[in-house]
């Protein structure tokens, strides 16, 4: 495998990229201990740290881009894969070099030993080619390498992680600034900023993870930050319920994650390293069967973290947290962790689900289902944040679907663009609610806000348009690429014919435009329905909005198809920049897989069709509300609309309002640890039930626990010990079936047992 090996100095930032998560982590500790004594209650530390982290992320981004472009200029040069003691070992995969063109975008791994376990004889040698520990990255003391194999901690820099570094630090910075105004005067202002910092640090830690084990750590840490921030106002029960639900739902998925990582760990010859696992997955050293099982397990984790059907229910509830948190965590960054993981282990999923040349697979199906199902739910929400939450679910489905059909770059690109416009929308919603006395109810407390808060209005419209995929805004480009990538539209090529995902994608495109139009109408048009006088928010809120809106306009141009670039007679280097930067090519861990990346030929017809659908749907909704407001500018629903008149429509509406009854399924039927609504909790505590009959228990694991506890534990097991004499108690002692406390009974048991045991020993020897 080692065709060439030479030492090249690493760019400084690659060796020290660990600083990026370290800064917010330090900020967390500082805010926690000193925040309250500072003039701005700790916010300044967080913002400073984030500014520095953002600066470093920018350096990393430009270094990476510079590398890639330098590489493109010197076609065919080998590329850095691994570093060794501050120098860089250049590894060129021979086959890759010959068959797949120049290697590009290989990950730069920087690892130190974390800990070592096991020196057993069944140990398999490290499978990764040349990935070795180097010192100096994390501040951990490097223990002496034992004869066993070691588990490393380190950073992995490649296009994907650099992209997310940029997104996370950028949006986190804006959210920090925004929050200084939005949560001003909050009961736990300092605490809020501390956890914002911790979240950012954990997310960055996860993004830079070089191994699956490290990813689990980051994955869970972002989860717990999400838990804390959703439950920020924990005095109110619904908030802490939502926080619990989020955490527990994620835990369900984590079971899959733990198992999946375990399977991959052993399958890859005892390695957690992403590089090793990917290499072995593509080289066929891990059997297809194993990969499929691992991929299915990991898919469960994706479903919970990235809000895919049917584990998405926590995401809308998570809106109980402060709005900036929703923007940062539950729209732009944490929820894409699942998508990010798919990208990280793409060869595993790619081989495991046999994505190439297929027409449907589990990932594409779940993604497609989520994108349509989530979008439909957005129609019936009163709460503006819930609309956005379901929209997020829907868009995450889009991303997963894209990865499922093999459109790797398109999926990640959509992740990238979505982060900006969805953050913009969430922050916009926060701004609106700031004006409307902290209400999020569009129907009761909003309407006509266009006049009062123009900046918010316009940024919201731009964000919505980007989300709906109206050209030339960001969402259009990424969405179009996904639709093309399904390969089902005539003339696009692609590596499979994913017809169903294409249809799902088109439906979603139309739905997205429709529900966003509805949201804009309900919020900004008509007449103000709330009380008091709404006003535009302050500059610390509007500036981030404007910046994000700007990004929502421009980021799409990063990945224009070359045909379009030619059409506009732009320099050809402007085409598919994002693809060049992010997509790996010709490296050992992606051999073969990158062939399967769908680089379908963009189709003008498809673009027009999708845009037409979106615009058409938007216009329909627009007409609907125009007519409504013409009748009564304060109305929100037709009094005798289809929902009132048509039973079928009414039933459908009911299903949507009830969120497909999934919550009922979870809480009432599966119940158990997943959620504890008031009624259940009350029931839980109901001593009468606890002390009472059996039948109420069987329906839930709580009930099951109670059942087992009472009858098996206290009755059977305990009873056996406590005693034999009870069995003979034929007299009226029936109700006193608790311990008699009789020493004699214990003695009986003791002697009896001694006799039995003696017999056992006598006859056994």
């Amino acid at each position, binding site marked *: 495998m080692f065709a060439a090996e030479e030492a090249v100095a690493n760019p400084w930032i690659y060796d020290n990229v660990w600083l990026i998560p370290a800064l917010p982590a330090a900020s967390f500790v500082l805010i926690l201990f000193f925040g309250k004594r500072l003039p701005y209650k700790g916010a300044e530390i967080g913002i400073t740290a984030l500014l520095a982290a953002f600066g470093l992320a920018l350096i990393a981004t430009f270094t990476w881009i510079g590398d890639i472009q330098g590489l493109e200029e010197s076609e065919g040069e080998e590329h850095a894969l691994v570093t060794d003691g501050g120098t860089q070992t250049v590894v060129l995969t021979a086959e890759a070099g010959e068959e797949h063109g120049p290697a590009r975008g290989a990950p730069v791994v920087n690892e130190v030993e974390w800990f070592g376990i096991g020196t057993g004889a069944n140990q398999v040698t490290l499978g990764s080619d040349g990935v070795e520990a180097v010192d100096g990255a994390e501040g951990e003391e490097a223990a002496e390498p034992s004869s066993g194999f070691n588990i490393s901690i380190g950073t992995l820099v490649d296009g994907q992680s650099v992209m997310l570094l940029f997104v996370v630090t950028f949006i986190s910075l804006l959210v920090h600034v925004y929050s200084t105004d939005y949560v001003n005067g909050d009961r736990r202002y300092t605490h809020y900023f501390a956890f914002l910092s911790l979240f950012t640090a954990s997310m960055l830690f996860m993004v830079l993870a070089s191994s699956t084990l490290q990813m689990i750590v980051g994955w869970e840490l972002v989860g717990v930050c999400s838990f804390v921030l959703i439950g920020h106002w924990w005095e109110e029960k619904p908030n802490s319920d939502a926080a619990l639900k989020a955490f527990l739902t994620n835990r369900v998925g984590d079971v899959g994650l733990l198992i999946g990582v375990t399977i991959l760990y052993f399958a890859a010859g005892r390695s957690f390293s992403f590089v090793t696992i990917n290499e072995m997955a593509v080289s066929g050293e891990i059997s297809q069967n194993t990969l499929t099982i691992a991929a299915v397990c990991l898919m469960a984790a994706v479903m919970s973290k990235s809000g895919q059907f049917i584990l998405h229910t926590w995401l809308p509830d998570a809106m109980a947290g402060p709005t900036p948190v929703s923007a940062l965590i539950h729209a732009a960054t944490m929820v894409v962790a699942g998508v990010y993981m798919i990208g990280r282990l793409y060869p595993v999923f790619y081989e495991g689900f046999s994505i190439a040349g297929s027409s449907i697979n589990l990932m594409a199906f779940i993604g497609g289902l989520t994108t349509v199902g989530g979008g439909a739910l957005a129609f019936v929400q009163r709460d503006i944040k819930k609309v956005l939450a379901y929209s997020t679910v829907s868009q995450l489905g889009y991303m997963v679907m894209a990865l499922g059909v093999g459109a790797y770059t398109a999926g990640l690109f959509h992740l990238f663009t979505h982060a900006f416009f969805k953050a913009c929308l969430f922050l916009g919603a926060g701004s609106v609610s700031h004006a409307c006395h902290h209400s999020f109810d569009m129907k009761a407390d909003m309407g006509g806000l266009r006049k009062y808060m123009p900046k918010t209005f316009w940024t919201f419209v731009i964000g919505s348009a980007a989300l709906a995929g109206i050209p030339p805004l960001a969402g259009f480009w990424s969405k179009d690429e996904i639709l093309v990538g399904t390969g089902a539209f005539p003339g696009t090529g692609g590596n499979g014919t994913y017809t169903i995902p294409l249809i799902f994608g088109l439906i979603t495109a139309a739905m997205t435009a429709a529900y966003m139009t509805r949201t804009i109408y309900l919020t900004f048009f008509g007449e103000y329905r709330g009380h008091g006088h709404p006003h535009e928010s302050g500059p610390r809120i509007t500036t981030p909005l404007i910046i994000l809106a700007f990004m929502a306009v421009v980021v799409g141009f990063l990945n224009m198809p070359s045909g379009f670039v030619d059409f506009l007679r732009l320099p050809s280097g402007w085409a598919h920049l994002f693809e060049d930067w992010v997509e790996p090519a010709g490296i050992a861990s992606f051999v073969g897989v990158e062939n399967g990346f769908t680089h379908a030929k963009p189709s003008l017809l498809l673009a027009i069709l999708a845009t037409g659908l979106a615009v058409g749907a938007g216009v329909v909704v627009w007409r609907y509300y125009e007519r409504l407001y013409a009748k009564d500018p304060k109305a929100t629903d037709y009094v005798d609309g289809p929902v009132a008149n048509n039973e079928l429509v009414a039933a459908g509406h009911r299903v949507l309002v009830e969120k497909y009854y999934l919550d009922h399924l979870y809480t009432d039927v599966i119940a158990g640890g997943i959620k504890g609504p008031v009624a259940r909790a009350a029931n839980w505590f109901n001593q009468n039930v606890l002390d009472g009959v059996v039948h109420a228990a069987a329906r839930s694991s709580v009930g099951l626990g109670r059942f087992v506890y009472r009858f098996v534990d206290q009755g059977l097991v305990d009873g056996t010990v406590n005693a034999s*004499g009870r069995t*003979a108690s034929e*007299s009226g002692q029936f109700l006193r079936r608790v311990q008699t406390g009789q020493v004699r009974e214990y003695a009986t048991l003791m*002697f*009896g047992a001694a*006799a*039995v045991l*003696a017999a056992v020993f*006598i006859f056994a020897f």
Partner: protein
Amino acid sequence: MIGLLAQEAALTDTGEWIANGFFYAMAAVAILGGLKMVTTANVVHAALYLLVVLSAVAGTYVILGAEFVAVTQVLIYLGAIMVLLLFGVMLTRAKLGGEEDLDHEQRWIGALVAAGMLAVMSYSIWEAFDTQKLPGDRTPQLTQQVSDEIFSTYIVPFEALSVLLLAALIGAVVVARRD
């Protein structure tokens, strides 16, 4: 004195079965007495049956050539412990007649356990020692030998025991003190 005679007899081949006969008599007395003791409905009677059993056991010690132990048994058990027990009986419940509820309702479990143990023990004893005999030329151990042994080899346990006795004495006084 019968014991001593039997002991003498045991030393000769012809006397062996005399000793055996004496042993079986003692054993029968002991076992029957024991059974009566645990089944009788009268506490005082039970104490008296215990007396019988202990005497019979002392008899077997004599057969085994452990005169000093036999004498100690008689002195301490029959003289001291029995008196103590009888005092106990009288102090706690001065009723000297029979009583109905001296046993538990579930005494059959106790019987079962005891029978089980007996079975297991008998089997293992039989397996282990089958027909091994006691040495025929055993002589009664002299008291002096016993005392030599106690005060040389076993001096530490002996001292420990004396401390235990003292502790028990004080303990009994403290526990039973009326205040």
